[in-house]
């Protein structure tokens, strides 16, 4: 079932089977607490499985964020598709959603009991801190791989400052930053050529 993807699409980075994709995303889906899903997918797909490089991952991440839909689901779909075709996309989405679905249903039943215990929020805070650690680490690793050009630095910092520090809404910032950054990259390339 792994042989359904054309190998010429991925010159760097090994291909995996839909089963490998399912196993990876089941693990991520069951442990990605506190808004750290992207970093965990990065760790699995780039660091551990080496299915693609940082640059290829960032493209998928950007597409997953810009389009409507839950980011973790979109990201899983993009990565599964790239690694193992249509079956891989289905496996990745299934793996991302099913453990989280089971856990949230169980938590729904247990919520009234657990939410009154102080230990619950304490443990969740720790888990969230670990998740942010994963996110910061992913940011540092990918930053290191970016081309050291003025456009990269200004766009990256600009997005961080406006959305992160000034808390502007994401959508309008992205609508302005994406075309600007693409045109800038295109002009850089032509100048270099």
């Amino acid at each position, binding site marked *: 079932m792994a042989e359904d993807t054309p190998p010429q*699409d991925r010159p760097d980075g090994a291909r995996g089977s839909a089963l490998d994709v399912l196993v990876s995303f089941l693990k991520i889906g069951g*442990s*990605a*607490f506190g*808004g*750290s899903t*992207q*970093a*965990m997918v990065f*760790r*699995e797909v780039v*660091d551990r499985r080496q299915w693609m490089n940082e640059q290829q991952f*960032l493209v998928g991440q950007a*597409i997953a964020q810009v*389009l*409507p*839909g*839950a*980011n973790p*689901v979109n990201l899983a779909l*993009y990565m599964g*598709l790239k690694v193992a075709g249509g079956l891989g996309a289905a496996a990745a*989405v299934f793996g*991302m*959603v099913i*453990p989280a679905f089971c*856990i*949230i249903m169980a938590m*729904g039943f247990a*919520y009234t009991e657990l939410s009154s215990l102080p*230990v*619950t929020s304490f*443990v*969740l*805070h*720790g*888990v969230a*801190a*670990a*998740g*942010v*650690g*994963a996110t*910061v*680490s*992913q*940011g540092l*690793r*990918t*930053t290191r791989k970016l*081309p050291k050009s003025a*456009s*990269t630095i200004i766009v990256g910092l*600009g*997005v961080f400052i406006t959305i*992160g520090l000034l808390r502007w809404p*994401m959508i309008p910032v992205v609508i302005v*930053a994406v075309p600007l950054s693409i045109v800038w*990259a*295109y002009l850089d390339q032509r100048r270099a050529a």
Partner: protein
Amino acid sequence: MDNKLLGLFIVFAPLSLLSFGGGQAIVADIQYQTVTVHGYLSNAQFADLFAVSRAAPGPSTLIAALIGYQVAGFWGAIVACLGIYVPSSLLVYGIASWWQKHKTSPVKIAVERGLAPVAVGLIFAGALAVVRAALANEPNNIIVALELVTLAICCSIFYFSKIGSYTVVFATGGIFFLIHWLAF
């Protein structure tokens, strides 16, 4: 088809295509549709389900599963999930497969290079947003310090080692459980 199941699908499917940036964008609409328009839930029930969805792993749009369960049991949860994930997934599938099949060209390279710094800016902005939300309601400075130290240690582990993220997350949860047990 059961009226309630159909109703759930009709509530969530259009919101799927409006959920830019994930769940935060449509939480207000989900609340309006399920509480005010359809009367599936009370405001207090909605607030409880929202809290559960924030504490659980996975996408925050899984609140749809909780609402579906409240409204129509197990199949309600399944139908609500299909409604919230299928339309956006079909769109992403179409665009991603077109993109991945496209031959490399100067324009495609420029798009990839241009998207990269935006994605990196969003990664750090997202990390900052989670830190700010976690520390906003924390009066105890020792706990704040503990969380920042945890963040730094986990970041170093992820940066310098290949230990899986699930191992680190569950170990951190266990350690926090022990600290709470010993110290409080």
